[in-house]
């Protein structure tokens, strides 16, 4: 009798363990099926870099190429690039997000339309041109580049924020007001929390734009990876050109991927 009971208990325990494993498996499977696309980009990046290394490894580099492609040189330019993009992104977010929220307030609704229209049209305004014009206005160098990058990315991010906030469920806001929240309370307890995904999306847009434009900062003497391209063109060195293009592409993809992962996490958190 007792043995039989133990057996049953054992069987139950086994079943429970199996059940748990199964659940774990299905959880992983669900996670995988939702986010399998996140693996694609790193795979592309790794492939790109492997290909580059293999290519450069098989080439006989001349002294000029060796100097330009020296890790210290490339690393320094990479760091400059990241600083440029990072600083301008922070600035863009500090300006565009509050402005976007302000524009979505009831009083400013009327300006929204024009902002969206101008913002849409401004996509045709080349960031390269904005950057160069800044150089005439201020001077060559890092600060000018950051200002130029910030200005160039401002309208797109602003537009993105306004569109995103428009999509925040109006009925929730109405419900909050209906429960007696003041408009301030509604803003901080309902609208901004709901808008967090929008803000993170804005971050991603700003980052991608700025990493791209920052490669052009070398034309106004602010360094960055564009310098590598410029040197390669000046020296007519194809190997350098390929390495430069590869590194820039890999960096941009990586940053976009990271921003994308952050975006997913934030969206998942905010339900």
């Amino acid at each position, binding site marked *: 009798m007792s043995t039989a009971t133990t057996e049953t208990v054992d069987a139950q325990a086994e079943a429970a363990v199996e059940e748990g494993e199964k659940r774990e498996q299905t959880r992983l499977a669900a996670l995988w099926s939702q986010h399998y*696309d996140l693996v*694609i*980009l790193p795979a*592309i990046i790794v492939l790109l870099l492997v290909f580059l290394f293999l290519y450069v490894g098989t080439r006989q580099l001349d002294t000029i190429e060796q100097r330009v492609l020296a890790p210290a040189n490339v690393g320094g330019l990479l760091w400059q690039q990241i600083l440029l993009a990072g600083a301008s992104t922070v600035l863009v977010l500090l300006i565009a997000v509050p402005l976007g929220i302000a524009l979505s307030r009831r009083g400013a609704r009327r300006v929204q339309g024009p902002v969206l229209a101008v913002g*849409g*049209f401004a*996509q*045709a*305004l*080349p*960031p*390269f*041109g*904005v950057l*160069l*014009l800044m*150089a*005439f206005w201020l001077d060559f160098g890092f600060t000018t580049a950051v200002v130029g990058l910030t200005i160039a990315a401002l309208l797109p991010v602003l537009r993105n924020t306004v569109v995103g906030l428009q999509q925040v469920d109006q009925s929730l806001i109405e419900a909050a007001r209906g429960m007696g929240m003041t408009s301030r309370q509604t803003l901080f307890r309902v609208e901004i929390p709901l808008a967090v995904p929008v803000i993170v999306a804005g971050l991603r847009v700003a980052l*991608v734009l700025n*990493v*791209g*434009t*920052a*490669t*052009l900062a070398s*034309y*106004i003497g602010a360094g960055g990876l*564009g310098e590598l*391209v410029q040197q*390669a*063109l000046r020296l007519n060195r*194809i190997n350098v*050109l*390929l390495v*430069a*293009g*590869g590194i*820039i*592409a890999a960096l*941009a*993809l990586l940053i*976009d991927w990271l921003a994308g992962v952050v975006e997913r996490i934030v969206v998942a958190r905010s339900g």
Partner: protein
Amino acid sequence: MNFLDYLASNSQQILFLTQAHFLVVLIAVGIGSAISVALGLAVSTGEPDPRRFSLDWFATGIREGGLVFTAALLTVPSLALFALFLPITGLGVTTAIIVLTIYTLYTVLRNTVAGLTTVDRAILESARGLGYGRLRRLLTIQLPLAWPVILNGIRVTTLISISIAVVGAVVQGPGLGILLLNGISRIGAANSFYQVLAGTLLCLVVAAVFEIFFAIVQRLTIPRGIRV
């Protein structure tokens, strides 16, 4: 000499570069849109049956993979793509057009897929119920109904291409970027600022021309029953 004087005295060169810019964008967007719309049409099937292996699986794979891949391409800075293509396709207009074409792919593909797949299910079901085959459904129901969304994708990608085409000057692609590079390399010299300013602002003029063009195309090609 003020800006207007500069424009007047260099009108020939400026006009030529503006036209070149317009054409490069037009060609790239044309090729890119044709590829994306065709691909979108080819791969916009429904959800594949999980129990049976069919062509739908390929289509779905190509669609999802294509979207992720072209989206990734769009984040690659233009200078990098120009640099990567230069050794293969050389200096000049070919490289400029190829790179621009690559940038147009994602937006149009995304809008094509979205437009085709969000057509009201009731409409598709009644089409099927009336005996429409798959191809007929795709071409006479889904495509016309998705067309406004697709066209908007082409419009947006055109605007983006106008600003990217400027960088094509780095590989000696034709267009307004030449004014920018000239200007910055002669910084301090007479009219260098005006040159850069003209190059930047004329992009907006090109954009305005395209906007008018799209407004007309919209009017002509969007079926009357779904015009807003």
